[in-house]
């Protein structure tokens, strides 16, 4: 998720509850069946779930990540803490 998140950054996240809204552009933690716990951006919201994508050219493609269900979206990024400073997200 470079340049938003770099290796060694800490992501402070808010757990997704039943009342949470997940919208396009949200940076979320996904429990992915193939890739494990990954942080990606919501690209598209469909009736079946969410299409997540990376923001760097070399990211795993949205097609590879596939559509994830709401139960797979665990948390939403709120603060990014890096040696470069602390930043609220979305910025």
């Amino acid at each position, binding site marked *: 998720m470079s340049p938003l998140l770099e290796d060694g950054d800490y*992501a402070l996240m808010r757990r997704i509850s039943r009342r949470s809204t997940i919208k396009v552009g949200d940076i979320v933690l996904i429990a992915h069946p*193939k*890739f*494990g*716990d*990954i*942080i990606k951006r919501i690209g598209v919201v469909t009736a079946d779930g969410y299409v997540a994508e*990376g923001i760097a050219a*070399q990211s795993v493609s949205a097609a590879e990540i596939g559509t994830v269900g709401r139960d797979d979206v665990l948390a939403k990024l709120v603060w990014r*803490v890096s040696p470069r400073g602390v930043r609220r997200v979305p910025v």
Partner: protein
Amino acid sequence: MIHSILSTADKLGLVKSASAHCDIPCGIYDTGPALIAAVSVVRMMDILNEAQSKPDGAGKANLIARNVATKEEEAEKVKHEIRVIWGDYFKAPLIEQHPNIHALTHAIMQKASACKQDVHREDGLALVELVNEFAEIFWKTKGKDTVRKDCPYAPNLPVVYPVL
């Protein structure tokens, strides 16, 4: 400051890790190179053991030197290829499905080292068998069936091939 505090908490195991990127090129993994290298180790052992019956001289010394060096190289290749697949491809969900992958990878590392240290053919055969087991698990994670067939070159050992 906050990063330092979180870093300390991280070192204490209080922070959960998540990946936010993947390697380039994404998803290109195959056990083929590791198997070819493992079979090559046995081939080198066979050549070295056969060399014992040759008359002493520069030719024999040259033959042994070349094959020992290649055996070393191929055994190291096995270790590298398997480490990359184990370390980069296998992630939490796949490891949960195949919990023996750690022990199997470790066994391959140990056996490949044994192959470097000596020329016991049984070590070479065991290495090929371990890498075959690894390949079967790997292709299973890809949803591909496998078949064991004798490789069409010396030492003609049974090797796992994916049914694509």
